[in-house]
């Protein structure tokens, strides 16, 4: 339970950061709707993200139905198909993954893990969510607008994104750009909160290097997002000008239906540079929180301190810096100076070093750990395997000479789904199974969870492993149907049908997971306080789930890093961050000096 340390304790430094003025809600509306409590905002973010994510999931089923069984579904035509892939991609990357990791987990965990009562700017935090919600509404509106949502592909490349023939060119593209700009404004508000709360509102004793890696991942990802999203904003704004005011920032001279269009001289490549200057850091905006969270899940569920904590922090910071230097590896086939290609291939390979270092450290943390095969651990192991698979195919695609023949094939689709789709989502699931008891006070149903894990894990491989093969034999991505293509054998069609069935089964497992989320809220086993025996502050609150203001009368004081598991000499196999050394119960026959000597 809570260690409310006496402020008179000589070892406790004086309070420098004053207690924050909390806003106390007085009605249902201010408590649950226009709430300024980061925990409520986190749940709002998560619910909206999961809801819109479900839309994207259904879109993927429709796409797979078309690919697996072409000519069988009259209600899917080519235009629909392009709209499905576009909306699926954009929703999953931006509106689900980014929003859930940073808006959801960030909001819930940052104040609790740093030992603060709330975010430093609660009102702006609330605005951040509502602007995100508005962005989602605008996005959804495009489904009902004339011409439907944009079908330009999630990269929205001009000129085709705004010229006739592309689905949604009437209003869908405008709504998409407006929605993205709103998202970025909302995110910037939230992002400033996350960064400043981590830097300036930590509890006494919580130095940067005592922070759990979850916070490091969220922190650096937020910094990345703050500096990467402006590129998408600039690109969206300029494309909006091109579409609405007929400027020619990105639009070259074009002829449409035999008539010369008013555009001329614009550079589509300029858009690609701006887009990928955002787009590649976006991969790490999603990956870094996953790296951080999975590190903590592994340490807690293997009862062992994380291997190479400092290296893990440096790797996160290093990946964050390098993330801005690799963007043009998405553009090898767009044409560039060969020296640029060489440069970006080299930086892409260099970024594999800190990433591989993290993988080694996760494995070495597991080595001789007391591995508990709980659901969070299963998903963490699933993440490591999937991330390694997806990462290795990234090394193929990072090299220009291999990328060129594989570009725009299903190999690329398989690669990015493994590395930034399935892998981070594995962490999200693991994190939800881990923190659900903290948020609701109940455990998720284990049987349903096991079903969810095994079907998702095996199913994901059933979907994406064969997809690499399809790419190797030249099956292109973004094709509505393959038709009678001479170089594609019949086996490719059979494989497509198999992948579709696997995707539908995996989709069903997600429905079971959703059911579990709602069912366990009322019917799950009541969780004991700190059920996983974790060291971090979010589990040391006076109440579980934590109430408004997070901690009791006194804020916690931190005495140690987040990974004091299996400390030799201690009775318990974990020592919470807010437990002073003098309060640690010693194992039989041990003295305080044994504890100290072993630790040193």
């Amino acid at each position: 339970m809570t260690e409310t340390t006496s402020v008179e304790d000589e070892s406790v430094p004086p309070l420098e950061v004053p207690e924050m003025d909390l806003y106390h809600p007085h009605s249902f509306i201010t408590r649950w709707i226009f709430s300024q409590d980061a925990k409520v905002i986190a749940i709002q973010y998560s619910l909206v993200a999961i809801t819109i994510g479900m839309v994207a999931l259904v879109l993927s089923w429709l796409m797979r139905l078309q690919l697996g069984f072409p000519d069988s579904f009259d209600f899917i035509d080519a235009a629909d198909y392009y709209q499905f892939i576009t909306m699926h991609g954009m929703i999953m990357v931006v509106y689900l993954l980014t929003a859930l990791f940073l808006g959801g987990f960030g909001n819930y965990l940052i104040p609790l893990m740093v030992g603060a009562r709330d975010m430093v700017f609660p009102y702006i935090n609330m605005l951040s969510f509502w602007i995100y919600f508005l962005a989602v509404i605008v996005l959804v509106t495009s489904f009902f607008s004339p011409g439907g949502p944009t079908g330009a592909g999630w990269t929205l490349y001009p000129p085709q994104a705004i010229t006739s023939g592309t689905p949604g060119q009437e209003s869908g593209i405008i709504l998409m750009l407006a929605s993205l700009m709103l998202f970025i404004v909302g995110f910037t508000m939230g992002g400033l909160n996350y960064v400043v709360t981590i830097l300036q509102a930590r509890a006494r004793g919580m130095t940067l290097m005592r922070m759990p890696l979850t916070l490091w991942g969220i922190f650096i990802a937020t910094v990345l997002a703050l500096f990467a999203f402006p590129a998408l904003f600039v690109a969206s704004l300029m494309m909006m000008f091109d579409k609405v005011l007929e400027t020619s920032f990105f639009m070259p001279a074009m002829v449409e239906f035999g008539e010369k269009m008013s555009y001329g001289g614009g550079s589509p490549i300029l858009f690609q540079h701006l887009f990928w200057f955002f787009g590649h850091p976006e991969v790490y905006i999603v990956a870094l929180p996953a790296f951080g969270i999975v590190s903590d899940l592994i340490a807690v569920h293997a009862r062992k301190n994380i291997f190479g904590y400092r290296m893990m922090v440096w790797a996160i910071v290093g990946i964050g810096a390098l993330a801005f230097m690799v963007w043009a590896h998405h553009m090898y086939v767009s044409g560039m100076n060969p020296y640029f290609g060489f440069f970006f291939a080299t930086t892409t390979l260099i970024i594999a070093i800190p990433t591989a270092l993290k993988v080694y450290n996760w494995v070495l943390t597991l080595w001789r750990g007391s591995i508990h095969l709980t659901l969070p651990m299963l998903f963490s192991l699933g993440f490591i395997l999937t991330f390694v698979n997806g990462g290795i195919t990234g090394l193929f695609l990072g090299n220009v000479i291999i990328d060129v023949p594989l570009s725009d094939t299903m190999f690329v689709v398989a690669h990015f789904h493994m590395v930034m789709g399935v892998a981070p989502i594995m962490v999200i699931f693991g994190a939800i199974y881990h923190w659900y008891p903290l948020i609701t006070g109940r455990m998720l149903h284990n049987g349903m969870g096991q079903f969810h894990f095994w079907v998702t894990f095996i199913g994901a491989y059933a979907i994406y492993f064969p997809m690499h093969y399809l790419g190797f034999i030249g099956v292109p991505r973004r094709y509505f149907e393959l038709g009678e293509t001479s170089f594609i054998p019949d086996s490719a069609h059979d494989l497509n049908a198999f992948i579709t069935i696997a995707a539908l089964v995996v989709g069903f497992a997600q429905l079971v997971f959703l059911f579990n989320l709602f069912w366990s809220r009322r019917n799950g086993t009541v969780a004991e306080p700190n059920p996983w025996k974790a060291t971090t502050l979010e589990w040391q609150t006076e109440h579980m789930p934590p109430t408004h203001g997070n901690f009791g009368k006194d804020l916690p004081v931190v005495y140690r890093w987040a990974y004091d598991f299996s400390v030799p000499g201690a009775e318990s196999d974990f020592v919470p961050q807010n437990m002073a050394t003098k309060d640690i119960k010693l194992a039989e026959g041990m003295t305080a000096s044994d504890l100290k000597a072993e630790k040193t």
Partner: protein
Amino acid sequence: MIFFSQIATKPWTDEQIAVDDQFSGHTFPLPKAMLALRFLLAVVTVFFVLLTIAYSSRMSFQDWKSLPEPSLLWFNTALLLISSLVYRWTRSATLKQHDSQVKIGLFLVGVLAFGFLIGQLIVWQQLADLGHFASANPANGFFYLITGIHGLHLLGGLIAWGRTTIRVLRGKIPQDKLCLSVEMCALYWSFLLVVWLAMFLLLLVT
């Protein structure tokens, strides 16, 4: 540097534990709002740098035709410069607790800021009257884009200015909060002045 020296420490060693136990507070010796503002300025800088890169990149194409620079732009620049100086003067007045000077300063800043914005709108009108619409040439498009975005940022600053001014007029703002509030507004204003000077220079030399 504070950041990098901190991440070099080994938090599990006894020596470092003794040091870390004495940590009490924040990473940087700044108020939270000021740190947030500095981050925001960094983000906005990235935004304008990207616009500048896009501008330079697009300029190299053959269809680029430079815009005429209406002389009113010089007058507007002077207004923004003076308003920034007045903000600095207001900031000193808050530190010296000269209430009447603070009110005068804030009033003048408001007048000058609205003057700048109205001036920019007049420039737009003048260019449109000459047929320089956004779609006529990429240089025109960039001009409207850059001035528009800068103006929107200025409007954002005016919201902060309005909030501070109302609280000063009501007399309900504690001295320390007033100082911080005016200091942040003045910093933001100086930043927007520097951005405008950079953008204006870009428009002039191209």
